């Protein structure tokens, strides 16, 4: 029972970290640009497909692991490949922002919804063109699990899940550092809080917005990559559910709040896994029920905003 | 009579309103001005009276004459829209008008509400004769007829301010609370705005409580004056109390103008 509880909680945290990585990009973009990017899930899916190609290439360069050391080397190669795949999303995101999104900032917000929905549809077919109709799987999950982690403390838990949690923590840490400490991050926050002021002190809002959108795309893609190298596959409609769940998370957390997205993701992850464990039929509804409860009792979400977003 | 009893409101550390007790409209139709430096709690007081915020302590009470006896009603906690029903109406420092409507539609919307017609779905919005009569009167009184069909967001600031006040008048107020009706209005037009307000409230015997920074206007038009400082009532009385009061001068001049 206790061990089950621990495992279920770990599973929830693992799932939460996955959700966080997807939602992080959405919350950054929404927080700074004020845009609800419906194509976000497709950027996530694109990352999942890209990592299939990149990992396939990269792992071809190293021998199939035989021992612990070579398994760790393999793991590092896979993570590097995931980063590389996500990096491809940087220019993709930047182009999407500068070409399509930028011309309509001034228009009624609802056109942003229509535009990003159009992009969602187009992205699906871009992936269909690039990787075919059927799912693809980099097939490295089993090998990643050969890296020893929990066994070292006498507990059996898939190493991949542990890796995801560590990576998710690192992503969160980096984002906090970026927005709190780095110069660029502070400029981004200043722009989010007051566009006019930022322009007045010589910040190019165009550049900032492009950068933020590219970053958002990067993290979506990285999230997709982390899922794809796991037990799941990359398939065309994979972006839809995470998109909807990401909405849930950024609202639970508090709009535009990175900390909120983090806590919100872990809450949704853990509570939904507990819920399935205790009462399996609720699986599909769990995240939304959590959202309803939190919003009805705490409408502004768990955390306030770090930028003033209208 | 509208009465504030020991009102207190805190925002975190800041005590914006502190034990304020005031009465407005003991003389029906009086023109009260509230002055004080920025941060004195003027707007907070209006917000507490009109129900935008609820006080942490104290109450808001309305006294009504009914069949010769005075009935006291505690309206603390009442929703703003219900206070409007009780005759408590306000305008805003930052103009709040319906930006995509024309001037006439703005005033009409308020007038419809006054006549409890806003739930009507069967007529057209201009289908109520008594409402249209009021709207025409108000547009004339506030000299907005010429721009009646202009969309609000396209108007110059002064006109928007007037419209904001006109909408308040359209609600047939007994107590009208105006939060800086002349802010942002060119100096030479301020008098015109206040003049219009005074005329309108005199005609309807409306008790008017106005937040104002321009001391000349205050001196010229006030029946009574309330000075707020650091959330408390600092002085209260005739406009003459502005004269020969060094302490008050420092409080008021230490800030603006």
């Amino acid at each position, binding site marked *: 029972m206790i061990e089950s509880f621990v495992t279920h909680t770990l599973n929830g945290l693992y799932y939460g970290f996955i959700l966080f990585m997807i939602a992080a990009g959405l919350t950054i973009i929404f927080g700074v640009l004020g845009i*609800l990017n419906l194509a976000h899930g497709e950027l996530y899916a694109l990352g999942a497909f890209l990592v299939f190609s990149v990992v396939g290439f990269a792992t071809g360069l190293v021998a199939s692991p035989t021992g612990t050391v070579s398994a760790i080397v393999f793991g590092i190669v896979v993570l590097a490949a995931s980063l590389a795949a996500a990096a491809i999303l*940087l220019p993709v995101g*930047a182009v999407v922002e*500068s*070409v*399509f999104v*930028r011309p*309509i900032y001034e*228009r009624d*917000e*609802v056109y942003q919804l*229509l*535009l990003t*929905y*159009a*992009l969602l*549809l*187009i992205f*699906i*077919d871009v992936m269909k063109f690039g990787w075919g109709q059927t799912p693809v799987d980099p097939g490295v999950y089993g090998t990643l699990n050969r890296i020893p982690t929990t066994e070292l403390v006498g507990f059996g838990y898939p190493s991949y899940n542990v890796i995801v949690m560590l990576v998710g923590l690192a992503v969160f840490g980096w984002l906090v550092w970026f927005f709190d400490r780095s110069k660029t991050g502070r400029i981004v926050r200043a722009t989010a809080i007051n566009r006019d002021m930022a322009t007045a002190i010589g910040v190019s809002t165009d550049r900032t917005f*492009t950068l933020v959108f*590219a970053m958002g795309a990067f993290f979506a893609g990285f999230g997709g990559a982390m899922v794809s190298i796991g037990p799941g596959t990359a398939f065309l409609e994979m972006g839809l559910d995470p998109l*909807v769940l990401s*909405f*849930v998370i950024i*609202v639970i957390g508090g709009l535009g709040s990175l900390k909120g997205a983090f806590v919100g993701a872990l809450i949704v992850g853990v509570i939904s896994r507990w819920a399935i464990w205790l009462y399996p*039929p609720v*699986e*599909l*509804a769990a995240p*939304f029920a959590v959202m*309803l409860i939190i*919003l009805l009792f705490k*409408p502004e979400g768990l955390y306030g905003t770090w930028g003033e977003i209208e | 009579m509208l009465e504030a009893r020991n009102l207190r409101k805190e925002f975190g550390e800041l005590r914006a309103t502190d034990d304020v007790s005031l009465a407005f409209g003991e003389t029906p139709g009086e023109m009260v001005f509230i002055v004080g430096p920025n941060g004195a709690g003027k707007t907070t007081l209006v917000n507490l009276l009109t129900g*935008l915020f609820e006080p942490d302590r104290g109450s808001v009470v309305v006294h009504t004459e009914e069949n010769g006896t005075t009935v006291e009603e505690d309206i603390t906690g009442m*929703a*703003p*829209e219900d206070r*409007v029903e009780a005759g408590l*109406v306000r305008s805003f420092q930052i103009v*709040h008008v*319906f930006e*995509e409507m024309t001037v006439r539609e703005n005033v*009409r*919307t*308020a007038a*419809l*509400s006054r006549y409890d*017609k*806003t*739930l*009507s*779905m069967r007529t*057209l*919005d*201009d*289908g109520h004769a008594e409402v249209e009569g009021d709207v025409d009167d108000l547009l004339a009184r506030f000299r907005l007829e010429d721009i009646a069909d202009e969309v609000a967001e396209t108007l110059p600031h002064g006109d928007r301010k007037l419209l904001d006040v006109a*909408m308040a008048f*359209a*609600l047939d107020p007994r107590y009208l609370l105006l939060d800086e009706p002349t802010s942002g209005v060119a100096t030479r037009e301020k008098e015109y705005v206040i003049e219009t307000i005074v005329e309108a409230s005199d005609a309807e015997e409306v008790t008017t409580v106005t937040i104002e920074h321009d001391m000349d206007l205050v001196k010229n038009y006030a029946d009574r004056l309330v000075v707020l400082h650091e959330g408390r009532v600092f002085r209260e009385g005739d406009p003459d109390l502005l004269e020969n009061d060094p302490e008050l001068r420092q409080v008021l001049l230490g800030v603006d103008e």
Partner: protein
Amino acid sequence: MSRIPFVEERNGESIVRVPLTRGLGLTPVQAVLVLVGIVLLFGLPFFSGLVGLSWERLFRGILFGIAAVGLNLLLRHTELVSFGHAAFFGSGAYGVAVLAAHYDVSEGLLLLLGAVLIGTLVAIIIGYFVAGYVDIYFALLTLAFNQVMFATVFRSGFFNYNDGLQVRIGGDRPSLFGLEWTTLGYNLVLYYTTIVLLLVMLLGMWKLINSPFGRALDAIGQDRTRARFIGIPVERYVWISFTISGLYGAFAGGVYALLRLHVQPEPTLYVFVSGEILFMAILGGFTTLVGPLIGGIVLVYLLEAARFWVTYYHALTGLVLLAIVFFMPKGIVGSLPSIGAALAHRRHDPGLVREDIRGIAAAMRRAVDRAITTVRIIVFGVN
């Protein structure tokens, strides 16, 4: 000028009075368009085939369009974006299905009435919870309610999971007006009943948005605080408009169930259906009354039929939507006046067309330039 029935002079312009509306009017051009529209609607089953269109698909488009008209009451007037309108469409559809499958109600109009009641009840309940929220909170609360309903139906044996319920009573389709019909007859009777009700509902919506209540909703949308301070009970009015909005969706869903005779969760209740209803309103022109209806027809046609035309049919739909966003900035119907004016100009001065082409080419060049610059900055870190 001799008097033409229904035409009067107002402020120096001819206005066509509309029966039953007590004072609403159309410009002559609008009146002609409306008449053409009505003729098209009534003739649809007969000539859509001639131009290669499927009228049953257009019918479905109209149904989703009706839901979008309902949604637009919130979107255009109270300025609330609902991401959960499939909840009402789906309630209407499942209302019909449950009454037919579990309670053996066999008259279509009764089923429809039941559907509208059930869907409206759902709107009343959800509306109670969401009326106090604005912006994205409102959007996502509606989404969450919608998705909880979807999950419940999808996982419940009462609704036969995702396999859905037949709208047949002992294998037979419902009667309409107490009579049994052939397949074609049934569809035609259902269609014309719907069209008549649609016209009534459009007229009703038109009156509503021009009534004092409509003005109050506008006030709420444009400035909620001020609306409250002129004495409008904001939450209550949002709740009412939400309910009316849901009623339109429930009606549409009910007819959809009667037409399709089988109801499943994905095409009626899924949150992306909510999204589609919203996009229909926007692409058709949410600043107009009939725009959402046109948007419904266009989007449903694309979503259903494009797969028969090209392999990359998602992209085709996406490109059409992109074109609407950039070239019809107020949606299809909303942009008609400016497009009409522009075309008239060009008839006078064909040289303008060359300028248009040049303009579009320049815009595309600029877009490509932006793309290249951006990629250069991102990839090489130089400007």
